[in-house]
Each structure stands twice: as C-alpha cells, then as structure tokens.
C-alpha cells in the first residue's frame, strides 16, 4: 500500500486530517453542548430585512448565484443560501427572480426552490420560470441582468457566489435602481467593487457561514466552531513560526535552527 501514495504530500495529508478532525470535533461538541453563540453578521441579518422591504414595496427580489458552474464550491454555498432565501420569499409571498449563467445551476436552483416553497407550505407559489438561463458568457449575462434590474426595479438584490468582472456591472445597476444589496463571495479581487456598490458584503468566510446563520442548523453552526479552531491554529503557526524563524536567525542556537528547519519542512509543499 505504500506505493499507492505520493510521499511528498505527507504534510498536506496531515493538515487535511487535522482540519477534518477539528470540524468534526466542532459538530460533535455542538451536538453535546448546544448551539454556539455566534457573532452577528450585518449582511446576513440584512437578508430577511431586505426581503421584508421587497414585500412591502411589492417589488421582486433578485438572486444571482454567481457566474460559475456547479463544480465551483462557491456556487454550492450560494445554493445553500438560496434555499434559505427561497423559504423567506415563500413565507412573505414575495416574487423571486433568479437569472443563471449555467444550465446545471438552473436545474439545481429550480429543484432547491421547489423544495423550499414546499417546505413552508407554499408549493403553488413556486413556478419554474422563477429561474431562467441567460447566457454562459459573463458580459452577455451582465447585460441581460442589468436590463432586468432597470426594468423590474427589484427592491432587493442578492449577489452570492463566484463573480468576475461582471460583479460591478451587476452591483452598480442594482445600486442605481435603489435596491438593497447584499453580496457575498470568495473572490477576493471582486470584494472591493462589491463593498463600494453594495449595502452589505459577506467577505470570504462569512459567505460560507451564511447558510449556517440562516438555517440555525446545529451541525452547520458546529462546523463554524471547528473552523474557528483551525483559524486559531493557523494564527498560532503564523505568529509562532515568525518568532521562531527570527529567533533562529539572530540567536544562533542549533536546537532553535533545527526546530525552525522542522517547521519549514512541515509547511513546505
């Protein structure tokens, strides 16, 4: 069996196992001890408020699950948020409009919304045409959605998922239409544009945690506890490692140098 694995990736395998263990620990801990206290994220809290506003104004809610396909984990995270948003719009009786760029996302989104509307007892309010396919091309999609925003004037726009250059085209159109906008993405280079044009932005990890916040699911919230543990460990390695490398450089002790080399070997890919 030793010939089955790439021996140079031992440290990555160790890290993967450690992260998995931490997240599983978080879930188990939560099942035994109860839901963790989570800090308020303004963007997540704004989602229900925005849907309420849309209901009062009688204007639709626009949801864009990014512009990438179902093999992108950000799209999967967005569909988790869509499930929660779908329940809210069904409960409030508010119109939901969801343009998509990918056919697989179209199919998945329709299924998710159908289940969401059924779960809150409003199966008749669901219509497959809530979710439409526009174009695989990012700018073709942005042009069409900008037109939809300009004509239909949604009261709330949720831009949740992986975006590229079209992010600002979508966000600015929504801002100019007077919509409350909540964006969320893991694309760090699009964050500045979304921050400038949207009312609330779920930055990186907040985007992946949003589904847990909205559903209050114990296992999802428990995984947040595990994620925090992983981040604490990463911080400890960063700070400790910087101190160690600096001390080894200036101190000159051999045991310190050996420790430094071991740490660098552990972190080397």
């Amino acid at each position, binding site marked *: 069996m030793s010939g089955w694995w790439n021996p140079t990736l031992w440290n990555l395998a160790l890290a993967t196992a450690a992260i998995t263990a931490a997240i599983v620990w978080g879930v188990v801990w939560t099942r035994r001890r109860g839901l963790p206290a989570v800090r308020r994220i303004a963007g997540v809290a704004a989602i229900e408020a925005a849907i309420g506003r849309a209901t009062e104004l009688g204007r639709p809610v626009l949801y864009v699950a990014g512009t990438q396909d179902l093999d992108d984990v950000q799209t999967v995270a967005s569909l988790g948020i869509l499930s929660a948003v779908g329940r809210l719009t069904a409960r409030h009786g508010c119109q939901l409009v969801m343009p998509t760029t990918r056919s697989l996302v179209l199919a998945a989104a329709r299924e998710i919304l159908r289940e969401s509307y059924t779960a809150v007892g409003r199966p008749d309010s669901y219509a497959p045409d809530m979710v439409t396919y526009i174009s695989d091309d*990012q*700018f073709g999609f942005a042009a069409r959605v900008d037109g939809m925003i300009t004509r239909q004037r949604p009261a709330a726009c949720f831009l949740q998922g992986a975006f*590229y*250059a079209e992010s600002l085209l979508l966000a600015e159109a929504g801002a*100019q239409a007077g919509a409350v906008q909540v964006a969320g993405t893991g694309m*760090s*280079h699009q964050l500045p544009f979304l921050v400038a044009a949207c009312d609330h932005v779920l930055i990186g990890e907040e985007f992946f945690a949003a589904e847990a916040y909205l559903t209050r699911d114990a296992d999802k919230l428990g995984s947040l506890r595990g994620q925090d543990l992983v981040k604490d460990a990463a911080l400890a390695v960063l700070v400790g490692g910087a101190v160690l490398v600096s001390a080894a450089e200036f101190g000159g002790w051999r045991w310190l140098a050996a420790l430094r080399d071991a740490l660098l070997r552990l972190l080397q*890919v």
Partner: protein
Amino acid sequence: MMRATGVGILEGLGRLDRRWLYLMLFVALGVTLVARPLFPESSSVFTRPVFARIESLARGAPVLVALDYSPASAPEIEPMAQALTRHLFLQGARPVFVTLWPEGNNMLQRLREQVFEPEFPDLVEGIDYAALGYKAGGRMVINALRQDLRSMYTADLRGVPLDSLPALAHVARLDQFPLIVALSGGTPGLKEWVLYGGDPTGTPVAGGCTGIGTPEFLAYFPAQLLGLLGGLKGASEYEAALAERYPALGIPRRAGRAMGPQTVAHVLILLFLVLGNLSYLRRRGPRRDGRRA
C-alpha cells in the same frame, strides 16, 4: 449671499447626477485618447525580473507562452503579450504558444497579424516558434504537460506533428522549458500555471495579468512568481524597458499611449472623491445655530 451660494455649489457638487460624472469621464478620456500623450516610465521591482530573465535566455531557448485571455481583457493583456513576444524574438528565443481559453486561438492570430508578420517576417513557424493552440481542461492540461507534452498536444495548429517541429526538438515536458510566461485575464490562468506548472517543476513563471488581478498574484511574488506585469502599467513599464534596450527599433508603445487616458481617469476619480467628501463633510458639520447636524 456669496458664501451661501458657495456652500450650495459645494453641496451640489457632492450630489451630482451620475450622468455628469460619466460625461466628464467620457470627455477627458476622449481627449487623451485622441492626443495620445506618452509619459516617461521606469520599471518597477515586479517587472524588472521578467525583463532580466528574458535578457538572459540562451539563443534558441524554448519558452512556453500561455495566452489565457479574451477580447474583454485584451486592452490590458495584449500590449504585454506583444511586448513580451517582441522581446523573445529579439533575444532569439523560441516561444511555444498554448492557451487554456477558447478565445486564445484568436488572440494568437491577432499577435501574428500585429507582431509576427509586420515586424519579424522571416520567422518560420515550427522552427522559430510553435503554435499549439487551445486545449480544454484548465489545470488538467497543465498537469498533463507536466508529465508529457505529447499526451495533450499531438500536433500544432497547422496539423504538423510535434515530433516534426524543430522548435520543440528537445522538449518533452514542462520542466524542460527554462521559462513559462503566463498572460492571464482570469481563470484558468496565471494562478493555475504557478500552482500546477511552475511550483511543482521548479520552472520559473513570469506572469501578466489585468490590473484588478495584480493584488491577488503579488502574494506569489517572488518565491513562486519570478515577476509580474500588472495591468496596463506593467505593460507600459515593459515597453519602456524594451524601448530603452533597443532604441533604434522604434518599439511601439501601445500601453504607454494608453497610460494617458488611465492617468486622466485616475485623476478624475480622485477629484470626484474629493468633491464627494467636501460636500459630505459640509453636510455633517455643525449647523448655523451651533447644533450638530
């Protein structure tokens, strides 16, 4: 009265209809696009290593050039593609063009029409350079090239088998290229070339990207990325360095000429920020009756 009028103008300037902003920007950009001023340029710490590396290439060295961009990002990436290709040919290197984007073949065709044919008419495809073209699969393509070039490409764009191309005479794998130049307008692109191409094989990767992608890729510099041409500024710096190296050749300064409009746009946006904030501070300040607003 005058003071009140001035204050009123200030507040008005902070609440301009966005169409006035667009008009000002349009006029400013239009004038500079017509005038085409050329500003002096010097290489930054990110572009200098790329230039130095290409300068140090042996004559006939194969260099993998990935054209991973589309017409949308061509205004930023194409000038650097042209400058880098020129430099490679002037150094006598043999670029091998590949792309992970479907539009990449068209971008290569544009390079042929704009650089190869007018400036280097004696180049022979297959000998002085190779055009392998587009393959779908993103990082899978790079993984395959790492092990065996011929597992992914059996022939070039003309249909000539790879084994018949002198440009690829001693190249079977990615690590046999002394340099990878990855010009990227998005994903898949530079990040994949660094993570799956350069880093595992130890092959130096020189990158070019749009301005917006620059901060993301700076994290890889200098350990995993030899150098980075970030956006139009990076392309302009490279053109200036090339023009300084080959003063007699009259190197076209396409990116350099485009820096005029970029400069004007940046200055205008700064002006908008100042106006918006002056008005905002004015509205936030104490009222005439001494109470805060």
